[in-house]
C-alpha cells in the first residue's frame, strides 16, 4: 500500500469523529446568526475545534477584532508544540512547500495519530492522514448549518458533548498503556482546574489556562518520567 493510502486509511475514523463535532459547530454558528457558507468557510480555512468555536462565539457576541484574534491565537499556541514535535518525526530535508501544506492539517487528532507512527513521517503519508478529516470537518459543518432549524434545542445542546467525547476517546486508550502519560494528563487536569477555580489565579482566559497547564504538566512529565517511554 502506498504511504498516501496508508495515511488515508488512518484518517477515516478521524473524519467520521469530526462529523458530530463539526455538525455542532455548524449548528452553533447558524444559531448565532451567521450564514451557513460563512460557517463552512471558517471550517475550510481554520480546520480546528476549540479555536474556531471560541473565535466564532466572539464574532457572534460582538467581540472586537483584536479580542477574536488573540483568543483564537492563545487557544492555538498548543499547535506550536505539536508542530515542533512533528519536526522531529518528519523525513529529513522535506521541502518547505511540503511543510507548508502538511502543517495546515495538524490537529489534535491527526497529530496524535501521526505521532504514534514508528517510522519517519513522509509528506504523502501526512497528506493521506489529513485529506479525509479536512473534508469531513467541512461536510459536518455544512450538515449542522443546514439542519439547525430542524433539530430540537435539547438535542442541539446534547451535541456539545461530542468534542469532549472525542478528546476522551483519544486520551484514555493511550493513558491505559502508559502510567507516565496518564499521570501527565491528570496533572494537566489538576492545574487547569486550579486555574479555573482557585481565587486570584482564576482570572486568565481559558486559552492561557490550557497553555500553562500543558507546559507545566509536560515539564513535570519530562522531570519525573524522563525519556523512559520516548521512541
Amino acid at each position: 500500500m502506498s504511504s498516501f493510502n496508508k495515511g488515508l486509511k488512518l484518517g477515516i475514523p478521524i473524519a467520521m469523529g469530526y462529523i458530530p463535532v463539526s455538525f455542532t459547530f455548524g449548528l452553533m454558528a447558524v444559531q448565532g446568526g451567521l450564514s451557513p457558507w460563512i460557517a463552512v468557510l471558517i471550517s475550510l480555512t481554520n480546520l480546528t475545534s476549540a479555536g474556531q468555536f471560541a473565535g466564532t462565539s466572539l464574532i457572534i457576541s460582538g467581540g472586537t477584532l483584536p479580542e477574536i484574534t488573540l483568543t483564537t491565537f492563545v487557544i492555538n499556541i498548543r499547535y506550536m508544540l505539536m508542530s515542533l514535535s512533528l519536526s522531529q518525526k518528519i523525513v529529513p530535508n522535506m521541502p518547505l512547500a511540503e511543510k507548508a501544506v502538511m502543517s495546515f492539517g495538524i490537529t489534535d487528532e491527526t497529530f496524535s495519530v501521526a505521532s504514534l507512527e514508528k517510522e519517519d513521517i513522509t509528506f504523502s503519508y501526512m497528506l493521506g492522514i489529513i485529506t479525509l478529516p479536512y473534508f469531513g470537518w467541512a461536510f459536518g459543518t455544512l450538515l449542522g448549518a443546514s439542519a439547525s432549524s430542524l433539530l430540537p434545542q435539547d438535542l442541539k445542546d446534547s451535541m456539545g458533548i461530542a468534542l469532549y467525547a472525542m478528546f476522551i476517546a483519544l486520551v484514555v486508550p493511550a493513558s491505559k498503556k502508559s502510567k507516565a502519560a496518564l499521570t501527565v494528563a491528570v496533572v494537566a487536569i489538576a492545574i487547569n482546574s486550579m486555574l479555573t477555580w482557585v481565587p486570584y489565579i482564576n482570572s486568565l482566559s481559558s486559552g492561557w489556562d490550557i497553555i500553562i497547564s500543558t507546559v507545566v504538566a509536560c515539564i513535570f512529565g519530562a522531570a519525573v518520567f524522563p525519556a523512559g517511554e520516548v521512541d
Partner: protein
Amino acid sequence: MARILTAVFLMAAVTYLPRFLPVALMKGRLKSPFIKSFLYYIPYAVLGAMIFPGILNATGNPVTSVTGMITALILAYFEKGLVTVAVISIIIVYVSGLIVKYF
C-alpha cells in the same frame, strides 16, 4: 460582513502560523532527552487540559455534562472508536436531559 470576513481571515492566520512556523524553522533533531520527553507528553497534557473542566459546561447543564463525561470515559476505557464514543455520549446526554426535565 466585512468585519466577519476579516475576523475569519485573522482566525485562519493565527491558527495556521503556530502550525507552520516551528516545523518550518526547526532544522535537524533535538538532542536533549528532557526536551524530547517534554514533546512526547504534549498530546496527553493538551487533551487532559482541553477536557476538564471545560466539559462541565459542554451541554449547558452540569448534570447531563457529567453523565456524558462518565459515558465517554467508560466507552473510551473499552477502546471504542472516536465515532462510537461521540455518538453514544450525545445520546446518553440527550436521554439524561429528558429524565432531568420530566422527573
